[in-house]
């Protein structure tokens, strides 16, 4: 499809695993920030219906 690896993440976290949740979120945010803004899936404002 052309979505960069790293922009889509799957994780299995129990409600008891709060620390894992924090780690995963930090990790994912860092990866996505490194990739930069996703301009591919953005509609131009004047075109949005």
């Amino acid at each position, binding site marked *: *499809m*052309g979505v*960069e*690896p790293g922009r889509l993440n*799957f*994780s299995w976290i129990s409600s008891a695993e709060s620390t894992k949740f924090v780690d995963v979120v930090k990790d994912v945010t860092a990866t996505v920030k490194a990739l930069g803004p996703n301009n*591919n899936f*953005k*509609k131009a404002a004047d075109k949005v*219906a």
Partner: protein
Amino acid sequence: MLGYIDKIKEISKRLLDEGRVDMVIGFRKGTMPMMNEPAFVKTPGEVSKLVWDSNCGINLANYLTDRKEKIAVIAKGCDSRNIVTHLIENKIKREKLVIIGVPCKGMIDRRRITAMFDAEVREVTEEGDVITVKGAGFEKKLKKAEILQDNCSTCIHRNPVLFDELAAPLVEEQKGIDRYADVRRIEEMSPQEKWKYFEDLISPCIRCYACRNACPLCYCPTCFVDEARPQWVGKSQDPIDIRTFHFLRAYHCAGRCTDCGACERACPVGINMRAFTKKLEKDCFDMFGWEAGISPDERPPLDTFKPGDPGEFIK
């Protein structure tokens, strides 16, 4: 394949005469060359309008869902696999169906034939493996193997997987076919190249939804694109909306698509949307060893869990 028709007519007439079915779904000659259309035959007298040739690419499994009557359906390999999928998904009961299996040698690609000639193609006839194309001021004989639909030339399930009656002896399956050369070529691209590739692929799309309507898998009472509350996807011609439609539709077909080619055949602008579904078909085969619609007794990988299922993508 022309010879099949006598047997098809004979079986259809017998089933209707005996009252075993209320309706036979088959093909009749279309108003344009290479465009046979579905026929719903309800009386033995109408059986004569049935035809069978290399232009029967429409997937008749599409007309079976949510019907009340007893139906006999003419099924090629791919149609029969979609019937199995319907059975698995409880869209029709086996006892309501009489499947008239037709071993298939592939359907011809009308788009490729039309593109070969400058003038309009007025008549297409076939004899054995030779297709004769006629139009104003030209006549040409073509080898059928060279003008098969893409999905037919890589087909490995030509014989129906499930049938009650058979219109002809089973044909030999194609062996040693590389089904996924085109998918691998796309897989090797970088994300940017892929983005560009699919942008070009779907750029002519007018969102007529012919692909969805021709697809036997697309039987939802309200398709996600038609839903207004909530509106899952924009209804505009914006490239992003078009892309969202195509790839979500493809995902809905994951593990179910039989690569029958009905979507591509129905497309008025000739988009090869099989590029989406075929990747999912390949993944299903690689990851779960699954081919859709082979047996009504086996649950599809997406609604079962096995300890060995691949899960490396879950962190």
